[in-house]
């Protein structure tokens, strides 16, 4: 029945497009409300309108999406879900298990998504065998940003191992420079932690520990070493880091108060907005070690009734993964397109590096989901790990105790 109506709608759309018998409708729930993000969403709105669609915007700001999720829960419980919702990672599959997501395989197959999306990212967009979400961008999380002038002044090269990083940081600290700009919020602690785990343990260890939650990996010596490195890093942040927002930490690197920051590529947006040029004013490199941690924003498609809404949903899915939107949106947001066939000529050097590394790590099996940004684990498990990481980082807990607490917290969150 539903497939039929989809077919009917698409046939009707093709045949009577100029007549617009029922314009495609889409109600979109998202939390991209800040300046650059809002501009990025507006691009999608314009494209949607240009194709004859009627867009109902439903932005819910606040709490990093918490408020939007509360709104979504209420809408789904009342049986009136929005057409598309900004969702990511395992949350998509969690909503699918509630039986409320739509099947957009027809669009995905027609547009050949499987061929243009990296396999591990495509995996997040699928619920069982069907496509149920459309990816918007790829943020790389394991970036290290540096103030070039400071590094040049102290004769330091971008570190490629954690030992090199520690040596560089000791040198900077001795010279009276804060080595690491960091904001003491739980998710920022978690962001640093996952890059350390990846760097010290490698891709396979990361997958075992933070994706599969393998108990042996969680309690292994490698994990103890990761916590040791976190303790070392704690010594490299300034005294006032507690509760600091990430963009203020970025500003410290910009102003030369601190040398490095470990943060996803949304930090690049801050540098660029302040008129800094990658390569001259600031440097970007992957954090020490191999691999690539991604944070992919996507829109999950919810079940809706009515041909006009289903038509709108399909149109929306097509546009989101379309070449034009992927390019324009990601140039605004600092991320890179999820599809690999978009020309990157207009992107900056950091984005090109990110795209090249994504291709290479996808081929080498080290393209991994970020746990700190809700890509690898469900909320309860990811939260349990973050609780331990932040408790360790903000106290004098020993690494052995932290590892024990980590395993217990993960078991307790199941």
């Amino acid at each position, binding site marked *: 029945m539903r497939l039929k109506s989809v077919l009917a709608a698409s046939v009707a759309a093709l045949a009577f497009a100029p007549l617009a018998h029922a314009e495609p409708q889409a109600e979109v729930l998202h939390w991209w409300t800040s300046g650059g993000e809002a501009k990025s969403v507006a691009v999608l709105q314009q494209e949607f309108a240009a194709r004859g669609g009627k867009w109902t915007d439903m932005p819910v700001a606040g709490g990093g999406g918490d408020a939007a999720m*509360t709104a979504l829960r209420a809408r789904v419980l009342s049986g009136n879900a929005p057409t598309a919702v900004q969702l990511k990672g395992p949350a998509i599959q969690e909503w699918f298990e*509630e039986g409320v997501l739509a099947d957009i395989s027809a669009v995905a197959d027609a547009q050949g998504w499987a061929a243009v999306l990296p396999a591990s990212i495509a995996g997040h967009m699928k619920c069982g065998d069907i496509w149920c979400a459309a990816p918007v961008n790829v943020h790389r999380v394991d970036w290290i940003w540096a103030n070039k002038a400071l590094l040049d002044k102290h004769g330091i090269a971008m570190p490629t191992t954690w030992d090199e990083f520690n040596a560089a940081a000791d040198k900077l600290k001795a010279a009276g420079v804060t080595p690491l700009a960091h904001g003491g*919020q739980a998710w920022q602690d978690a962001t640093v932690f996952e890059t350390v785990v990846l760097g010290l343990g490698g891709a396979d260890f990361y997958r075992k520990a933070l994706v599969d939650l393998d108990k042996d990996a969680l309690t292994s010596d490698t994990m103890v070493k990761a916590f040791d490195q976190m303790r070392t890093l704690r010594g490299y942040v300034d*005294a*006032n880091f507690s509760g600091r927002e990430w963009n203020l930490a970025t500003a410290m690197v910009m102003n030369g108060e601190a040398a490095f920051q470990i943060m996803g590529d949304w930090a690049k947006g801050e540098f660029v907005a302040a008129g800094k040029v990658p390569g001259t004013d600031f440097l970007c490199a992957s954090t020490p070690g191999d691999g690539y941690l991604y944070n992919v924003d996507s829109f999950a498609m919810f079940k809706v009734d009515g041909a006009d809404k289903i038509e709108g949903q399909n149109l929306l899915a097509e546009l989101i993964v379309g070449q034009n939107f992927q390019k324009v949106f990601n140039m605004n947001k600092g991320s890179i397109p999820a599809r690999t066939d978009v020309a990157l000529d207009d992107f900056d050097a950091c984005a090109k590096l990110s795209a090249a590394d994504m291709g290479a790590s996808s081929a080498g099996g080290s393209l991994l989901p970020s746990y700190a940004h809700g890509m690898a684990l469900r*909320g309860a498990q990811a*939260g349990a790990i973050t*609780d331990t990481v932040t408790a360790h980082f903000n106290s004098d807990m020993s690494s052995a105790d932290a590892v024990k607490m980590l395993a217990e917290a993960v078991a307790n*969150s199941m």
Partner: protein
Amino acid sequence: MQWLERHVPKLVLAPSFVAVLIFVYAFIGWTAWISFTRSRLMPNYEIVGTIQYERLAASPRWETAMTNLAIFGILFILVSMVLGLLLAIFLDQKIRTEGVLRTIYLYPMALSLIVTGTAWKWILNPGLGLESMVRGWGFETFAFDWLINPDKAIYTVVIAGVWQASGFVMALFLAGLRSVDAEIIKAAQVDGIPTHRIYSAIIIPSMAPIFLSAFIVLAHLAIKSFDLVVALTGGGPGYATDLPATYMYAMAFSRGDIGQAASSAMVMMGVVFAIVVPYLYSELRAKHD
């Protein structure tokens, strides 16, 4: 007509009675039900036993939250009452500018806790506020970094909470002081009893009901305290200043763990009941006598 007269009060009260029944008691029942399920992202009504309470008991973060509630609750109530009482006694000395002073002390109560929390966050931030100011005066070794010290951060929440609430407690006590029979005080003064004895032996004991009211108001403020922590410390450093309410919020709205949130809400309600029920009981018994 007579029927109407008899039944109008009931009819007028009925809507709010029904609303309270549904939106308070029915939802308490719903939360209790959910706390015995494995609900994650969405409510799930299949009862599986006390697993959520066992998880709660095993969670070090919940333990921190309950310890913090005890520290915060006891200090907040105690310090607010002592400060409030002292301020009220000082203001009660028939001073000239009492109206102005009373307003100044009561004013913090007019602020939202978010504003209080944000202001104190800046005051207590070692790099921006008090510490850097005093160091700027030349006291280079002065340190006041409680806000970023995981062992001390909960006390900054107490400071901000007391600043907010003690003026209100002062107003309560001031009203109590004024309600004490002036004849008794005058009689005591005639007998040559010193002022501090008049307060400790006559006035304060006769204000017992005010103490109880102040305690109940402060206790429920402490237990449901949420916005102050969110604005002041964000629960940090780490989760060192988590309170049960912020724990519940994190589980329900950030982590998609509704069952866990429901069980923590039930425990919070248990704590409130433990304080309020004896109070209600004593009140009701007093009426019957």
